[in-house]
């Protein structure tokens, strides 16, 4: 051991530099976080860390200065040279190399296929499904719904193809969790929310955490949706396309705008236990939800009936009670044709 080892190990700038380089790679493990926090609790270390992080950030501005561009070119050149010399050594063992390459190719193709094909979770009429995903996230699927799941190293992409699903997202800040529904994208980290496609609208209800809603137009960068209307108890708690817990965002497909209202978190999740709760919703949306549980789907015969706003609690699958309840209170009646029942407005 050299005599100065101890003093080098206790140099806050050296230690701060080591932490900085680890932080630049992404999240620390829980154990490393604890170590880092303990280390940073010493004021001298905290100062050193700020200095190092400040220098790291200042380097950003140098990256395009002429001198730095020279250094970058040199660095890339030596990187290439090192790679090239390894390559030459490898080609000397040509046969082994070809065999290895073939093996690698097989693995690559297999991995690629796995990555390309999303996992599909689907429910039929009247079915509900709970899915635990590989990262610990959970999906709860309503009846007649489908979610495609595609996990990559740097992101978790899901698509709600139809129906409704509730997501419990395992925290992984390095892999954003996105749910695409129709032409909208919900971006989340560690959080709980539901997404539903119903009556040409995307509904997002946030239970915990925070999510952002973006538009997903072909060939364009996702843009935050514009919130036109916001009803919140204590003024705007969140700005723009970010939802606060207890809020519901409703966005019509093909539009880049949304409306935010307060959601009843208990009632809105009642479908998970087989109850459908409607609060001032169109008959069209309510019928679409009832139909997820109906062997013979109900129809809505005309636009006037479709637009009637209803409230009430119904058991999922009890279509008759629903029909009875609606026709008893609202100006609609049932017309039967070809074995199917349709709501038509009474003029």
């Amino acid at each position: 051991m050299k005599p100065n080892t101890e003093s080098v190990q206790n140099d806050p700038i050296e230690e701060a530099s080591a932490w900085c380089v680890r932080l630049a790679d992404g999240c620390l493990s829980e154990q490393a976080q604890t170590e880092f926090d303990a280390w940073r609790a010493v004021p001298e270390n905290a100062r050193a860390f700020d200095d190092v992080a400040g220098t790291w950030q200042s380097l950003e501005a140098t990256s395009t200065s002429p001198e730095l561009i020279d250094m970058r070119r040199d660095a890339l050149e030596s990187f290439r040279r090192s790679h090239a010399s390894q390559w030459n050594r490898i080609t000397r063992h040509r046969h082994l190399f070809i065999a290895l390459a073939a093996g690698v190719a097989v693995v690559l193709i297999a991995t690629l296929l796995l990555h390309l094909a999303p996992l599909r979770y689907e429910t039929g009429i009247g079915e509900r499904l709970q899915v635990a995903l590989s990262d610990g996230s959970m999906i709860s699927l309503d009846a007649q719904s489908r979610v495609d799941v595609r996990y990559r190293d740097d992101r978790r992409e899901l698509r709600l193809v139809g129906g409704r699903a509730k997501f419990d997202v395992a925290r992984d800040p390095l892999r954003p969790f996105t749910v695409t529904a129709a032409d909208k994208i919900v971006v989340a980290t560690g959080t709980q929310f539901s997404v539903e496609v119903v009556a040409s609208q995307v509904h997002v209800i946030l239970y915990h955490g925070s999510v952002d809603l973006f538009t997903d137009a072909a060939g364009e960068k996702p843009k935050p949706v514009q919130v036109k209307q916001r009803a919140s108890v204590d003024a705007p708690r969140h700005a723009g396309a970010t939802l606060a817990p207890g809020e519901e965002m409703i966005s019509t497909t093909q539009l880049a705008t949304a409306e935010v209202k307060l959601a009843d978190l208990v009632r809105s999740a009642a479908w998970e236990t087989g109850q459908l709760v409607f609060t001032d919703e169109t008959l069209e949306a309510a019928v679409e939800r009832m139909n997820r549980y109906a062997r013979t789907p109900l129809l809505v015969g005309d636009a006037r009936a479709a637009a009637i706003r209803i409230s009430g609690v119904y058991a999922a699958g009890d279509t008759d009670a629903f029909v009875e309840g609606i026709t008893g209170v609202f100006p609609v009646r049932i017309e039967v044709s070809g074995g199917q029942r349709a709501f038509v407005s009474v003029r």
Partner: protein
Amino acid sequence: MPRANSPPPSDGTFEQLTRRFRPGLMAFFLRRVKNHAEAEDLTQEVFVRLASVDADRLQSADAYVFSMAMNLLRDRSRRHQVRFDHRSSAVAQEDAGVDVLDAQRVAAGQQELSVLTAALRELPERTRSIFILYRMENVDKREIGRAFEISLSSVERELARAMAHVTRRVKDEA
């Protein structure tokens, strides 16, 4: 109707943002929220918001990133005002002081630029190459290790060494 494409951030964008801004953002938030998990959440929220911003704008826009971080912090302390009243007043006080990572401070002056480049030039060639590949060219540590035929921990040692040297030079000048 559902379509088959799925756009969010292109490959590498996220890693690149992480590499460029994570240490600074973590330092920024850690000084203000005193809670590792919350600093991590806030840093992550900046990245999520950056994902919706035109990447070209970010090429020279660290000031933009840090003013976004500052706004986020203000939003949050406003939202948590009741619970974290003492904390938000602490934030307000610190705002008044000098800050290594202030949005305005981040855009380094001409003098600091020449200190930084001089410090980089003083490094041994291999250390400099490794550092520049990592910091500026966004090359993975493992890949650097493979190219230079050294272990991952050696790469990390070289990177830390370069960082410490440059930081000391900047401090000497100040």
